[in-house]
């Protein structure tokens, strides 16, 4: 078990967003969390990255470490959990190369950085072509490539992805998920949250369904794709 989340409650200004979410992921898996807008998908990822505080009583363990003891930047730099945030959130005033370099800020392994940079450019050759451009000038698809590449550069034991398909053309979506599979084959565990349930379940091995801040269903992707409730609520009948 690489990541275990137990009884995770998160509140924003007294309003509960998560009501005791629990799930776990093994190393090397691809797992998705599907659910409607506002169900608590992003909040779950943000709590793992420690961007939002978890209420008392939550258990968050990653490879034997208590996540709650880590500051957000240390979750990334020490534990190797990278996070591709919703809406990509690139630094538009930095070049493509600078966005990737900034992600290595805390790393002290020049050899590893060089290897990872080459890997990112081999997965996303477009980023190499665009390396001197400001990130703000990239197309939507290229921006998503850079967001994933940037997360890869911070470290890649586990990658959290928040709606990677958002705003992408169908073809671009497929190639993005191909790239993510490649990253997963290199040994990166992937946890993704998606509104596009069909796409997510085709990509992931297992899935969780979240509703109103609670996990209501879990199972293999196949089982969820064939579940009548899931079909009705998330797959359009």
């Amino acid at each position, binding site marked *: 078990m690489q990541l275990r989340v137990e009884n995770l409650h998160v509140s924003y200004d007294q309003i509960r967003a998560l009501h005791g979410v629990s799930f776990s992921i093994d190393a090397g898996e691809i797992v998705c969390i599907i659910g409607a807008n506002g169900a608590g998908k992003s909040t779950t990822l943000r709590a793992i990255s420690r961007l*939002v505080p978890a209420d008392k009583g939550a258990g968050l363990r990653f490879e034997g470490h208590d996540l709650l003891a880590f*500051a957000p*930047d240390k979750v990334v730099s020490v534990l190797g959990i990278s*996070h591709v945030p919703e809406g990509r959130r690139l*630094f538009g005033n930095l070049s493509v190369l*600078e966005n990737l370099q*900034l992600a*290595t800020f*805390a790393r002290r392994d020049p050899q590893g950085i060089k290897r990872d940079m080459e890997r990112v450019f081999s997965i996303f050759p477009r980023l190499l072509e665009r390396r001197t451009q400001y990130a703000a000038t990239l197309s939507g698809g290229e921006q998503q490539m850079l967001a994933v590449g*940037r997360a890869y550069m911070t470290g890649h034991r586990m990658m959290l992805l928040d709606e990677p398909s958002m705003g992408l053309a169908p073809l671009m979506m497929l190639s993005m998920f191909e790239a993510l599979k490649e990253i997963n084959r290199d040994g990166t565990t992937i946890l993704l949250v998606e509104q596009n349930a069909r796409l997510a379940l085709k990509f992931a091995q297992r899935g969780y369904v979240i509703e109103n801040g609670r996990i209501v269903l879990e199972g293999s992707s196949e089982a969820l794709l064939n579940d009548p409730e899931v079909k009705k609520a998330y797959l359009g009948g």
Partner: protein
Amino acid sequence: MAFFMQNVINALQWGSFYALIALGYSMVYSILMLFNFTHGDIFMTGAYIGLGVATALLALVAALGWSLPGWLLLVATIIISMFITSLLGVLVERVGYRPLRSAPRASAAITGLMIGIILEYGNLALLGTQRLSFPELIQTTTYSVGSVYFTNKKIFIVVVALLLMVGLHQFIQKSRWGMAMRAMSYDFPIVPLMGVSLNLIAPLTFAIGSALAAAGGILYGMAYPVLDPFMGILLGWKSFVAAILGGRGSILGAALAGFLLGFIEIFTTMVFPSTFRDLIAYSIILLILTFRPYGFFGQAHSTQLRL
């Protein structure tokens, strides 16, 4: 014409002080969306630290029986004082602002004002009411080109100010810390996801801003040697105006607006009696801001504050 050129030189010197102080306001604002209202008093404290360092260096050199050139002592004074004052900046961030990072901005502004008052009256309590004079480390030499006169000190002040600005620009554009600062100015809540600690970059920004203010304080002490615990108030506010005029968070804008302020003030006194100076100068600036409310390089929504 000579009169005009004479005033250009004066304006450049006067603008150097504003520009060096305005940079600190702008840097802190750009990464933390926070106006550091302690900054004028950090300039004042920097000047006093410079005075202390210069006095100590002079005593040390005299005790050792060395004879070092004055400019060397001056450069050493600037460097050592910049370092000490940067530590003060780090302390202000740690004690005053970090606990309030997610508090309303007004709380941080009030805290900044209070720390400023503590610095002013702490100085008064420690050093008393006697006015201290900045030691003269280099002798004044006057040069003339045609009928335009200028001193070695004025040249030194403008050159050092420009060098510091170029250095800051290089640091921000070329170093990894500068890159992190630029990233923070664009979207700071997301910076920790890059493995970059805000608690590293925020103090660093305060340190650099405070060091520049200290340099400004020492250069000011060269031109106007009598120091005063309240000297940072008016200069601080005017430099804050320069930072706004340059465009909130714009480094280049702050430097340019600092010099522009110097020019407006000096050239106002060419035409009007000196008692009219600030009245007219700041009416002009108010007029500029009426037409360009975000300043020269500011944008209405340059920073995204979302999580």
